[in-house]
């Protein structure tokens, strides 16, 4: 079926409201509800059992003859509420300090019924919030995209964005909201060849070509989108220019992505739902050094983001969810790695988080076909996040799910 384009919703989301806002008071959207969510996805299936490590369970060492060495340097969570018996991977030192300080949370064994071990399908399930999803169709939407639709209706010009990717992931696919994919802020800016010596006013002259006009039909629709693009890009540029970093971001792809997240959140542009990813977690062989390096990169980049937000007085209004499409099998394989598994812990950081360790830790004596059994449904986590954002969770998730209780409202 061709996607039916909803012109009315498009006009509301894309152009009319930003224009109206501009008329009301210049370049800034009113900051009604400034709360911003970042979903950070560990792509490939992070090994949850070597991220949040059982400290006292003898079965762990039996099932993981070589990978158990990660336990030696693990950072105990016993001082945090609910954290007894578990420790964080030593590469997550800064996250660990935040959990103990009450500004970050670990939520054990998050998953969904009848786990699927395909990256592809499990990622689709997390993205759509639909474990029964048969196939991704042209009109399939993602849970964050549906949330963006609710915000678009409420008037945000660009309610959501993908950061760092080249194309829009399924979770941000929406029915009506416009969701850009930004590798760099410059991608959502009009580039003009106006090097030294070029004729004056070239940028303005190119922009003028796309100024609003009154054509009918498809030409008129394109003209409308073009003028909305120029207008939105101009506002974003003005907003981003006001940002100065107040933390040292690591010089890594994730560091750059998270700095763009901070710019978007701090700029108050009205983009409130963000997604980015960190790849490489599919550790079928020689897992220890690979996971160590990735968690280290995650820890440093997250810490810079949270510091930066804090120093801009924006931490209370920003929440970060870190999750993966699945955990890995409990039994180590013959290549000092692990194969695709099921449930895994998620991390929550930033404003609105109820610090500590939540949920029931994995029971290595009660596995589900060799995997960690899910004890918290991932949609309960989404429910927490949507409640915190004041977006109607039941309509986004197509059903009522109990809150996981890891976030304040």
């Amino acid at each position, binding site marked *: 079926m061709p996607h039916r*384009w909803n012109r009315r919703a498009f006009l509301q989301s894309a152009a009319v409201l930003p224009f109206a806002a501009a008329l009301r008071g210049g370049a800034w959207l009113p900051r009604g509800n400034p709360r911003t969510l970042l979903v950070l996805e560990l792509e490939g299936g992070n090994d949850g059992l070597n991220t949040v490590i059982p400290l006292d369970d003898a079965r762990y060492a039996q099932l993981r003859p070589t990978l158990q060495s990660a336990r030696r340097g693990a950072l105990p969570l016993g001082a945090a509420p609910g954290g007894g018996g578990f420790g964080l991977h030593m590469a997550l030192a800064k996250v660990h300090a935040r959990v103990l300080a009450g500004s970050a949370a670990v939520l054990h064994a998050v998953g969904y019924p009848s786990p699927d071990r395909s990256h592809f399908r499990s990622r689709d399930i997390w993205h759509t919030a639909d474990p029964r999803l048969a196939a991704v169709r042209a009109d399939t939407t993602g849970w964050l995209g549906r949330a963006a639709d609710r915000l678009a209706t409420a008037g945000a010009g660009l309610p959501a964005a993908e950061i760092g990717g080249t194309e829009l992931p399924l979770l941000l696919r929406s029915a009506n909201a416009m969701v850009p994919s930004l590798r760099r802020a410059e991608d959502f800016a*009009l580039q003009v060849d106006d090097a030294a010596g070029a004729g004056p006013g070239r940028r303005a002259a190119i922009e003028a*070509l796309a100024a609003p006009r009154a054509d009918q039909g498809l030409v008129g629709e394109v003209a409308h989108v073009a003028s909305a*693009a120029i207008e939105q890009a101009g506002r974003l540029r003005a907003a981003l220019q006001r940002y100065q970093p107040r933390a040292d971001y690591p010089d890594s792809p994730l560091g750059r992505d998270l700095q763009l997240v901070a710019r978007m959140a701090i700029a108050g542009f009205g983009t409130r739902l963000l997604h980015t990813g960190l790849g490489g977690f599919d550790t079928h062989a020689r897992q220890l050094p690979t996971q160590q390096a990735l968690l280290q990169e995650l820890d440093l980049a997250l810490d810079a983001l949270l510091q930066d937000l804090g120093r801009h007085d924006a931490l209370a209004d920003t929440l970060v969810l870190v999750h993966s499409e699945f955990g890995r099998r409990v039994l180590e394989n013959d290549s000092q790695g692990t194969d695709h598994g099921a449930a895994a812990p998620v991390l929550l950081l930033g404003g609105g988080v109820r610090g500590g360790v939540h949920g029931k830790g994995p029971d290595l004596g009660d596995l589900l076909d060799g995997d960690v059994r899910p004890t918290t449904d991932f949609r309960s986590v989404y429910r927490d996040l949507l409640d915190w954002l004041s977006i109607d969770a039941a309509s986004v998730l197509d059903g009522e799910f109990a809150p996981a209780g890891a976030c304040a409202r």
Partner: protein
Amino acid sequence: MTDWLAPWEPTAADPFDLAKAGHLLRRAGYGASFAERQDLVRRGLDAAVAHACGDGAAGADPAERWLEPLLAFDDIARLRETRVWIALQGSRPLRDRMTAFWHHHFATSNRKLQDPRALARQFATFDRLGLGAFDDLCAAMVRDPALLRWLDNDVNLRGKPNENFAREWLELFTLGRGNYSESDVRAAARACTGYTVVRGEFAFVGGEHDRGEVELLGARGPTDGDELARRTAAHPASARLLAAKWLRWFVHQEPEPAWVGELAACYEQRGRDVGATLRVLVRSRLFFSPAARRGIVKSPSEFVLGTVRACGARAAPKQLASAIAAMGEAWGEPATVEGWRGGRAWLTPATWLLRSNFAAELFAGRLGPFAPGADALLAPATSRADRAQLALDLLLDGDCSPASRERLLAFAASPAADGPGAAGALLHAVTALPEYQLL
């Protein structure tokens, strides 16, 4: 208009001109240079249609030449780059378009497959059979290793059917929703049991094939995947599904329902020969009517490849392929099992900016080599107005609304069109006109 599939006959008042030649080659190909378009206008409509259809194409087929190296590289980015290179050669314009069409139709993704070789071979099947009888294409696709694995038919076993392949076959590839029942899906799944892939090749594993009786689309008896392909290819619902899709692809993104039945009938009269049907369509009164003109939002590949080809320029296939992918049309990794949404879905502020920025970089020579450069392209024109007209001729067949022309002339007359990069900026300015987003 009645009898709109009848051949369009140019007249003195409505001649086969630059705009018509551009229209034909942008749709039955990836566009053509100004010189090529002028040449086709001189040679006339029939010669132009024959050119688009690749009649008497000289030289070796670039698609065949590239297949072996492609299989050796086993790299999805290289597959994209190679398809871009083939399209830029433009020796078989309609064939290249239809290979892309069939990729959008039998949308198979390497994300799950992780087997670029299998996808390269699937593209080669489209090259070979894409303009032949649909029956032959279906016969090949029901045994296509990439498609079978993509839709889990390698785990569709006797007594343990997996319906994924059968369902998509009926819904997306042939009959379309509403033309089969759930019990047809189950029967089709049983028909395809044992159609699997062993070491990259199609294999029929008799022991896993369900030889029991099924009732499939109203006929009872034992059956298999080959028969499923034969019967669904010949089904009238498939004709309508394909006709509607070809109209969206070649004529208008929202075709009139009345057109669908007539094109479907034309296709059935021609023995379900795809090439013969499309030859009628791109020569038809409808195709050259005002209703069809600029009635489709360009896809990323149409935008990128069309821009380079319209300039008659050489550019780096690798950079073009990644630009197309970054705009959301990563060949080999379709967005959904239904391919890409297409049409209006390509049109958002973010995609508009990406396209505009691509054009700015391309014309400024910052996207790898772009030869001849923007300066050389506009060198023949001397006055400001002539330069604007030439830029319009190159990129828009000299045909746009009065409002667009007025703005472009104002741009060309302003100081903004002076100094270094002036020619590139003028070409960039044309791509900022709304008409340029439309095919």
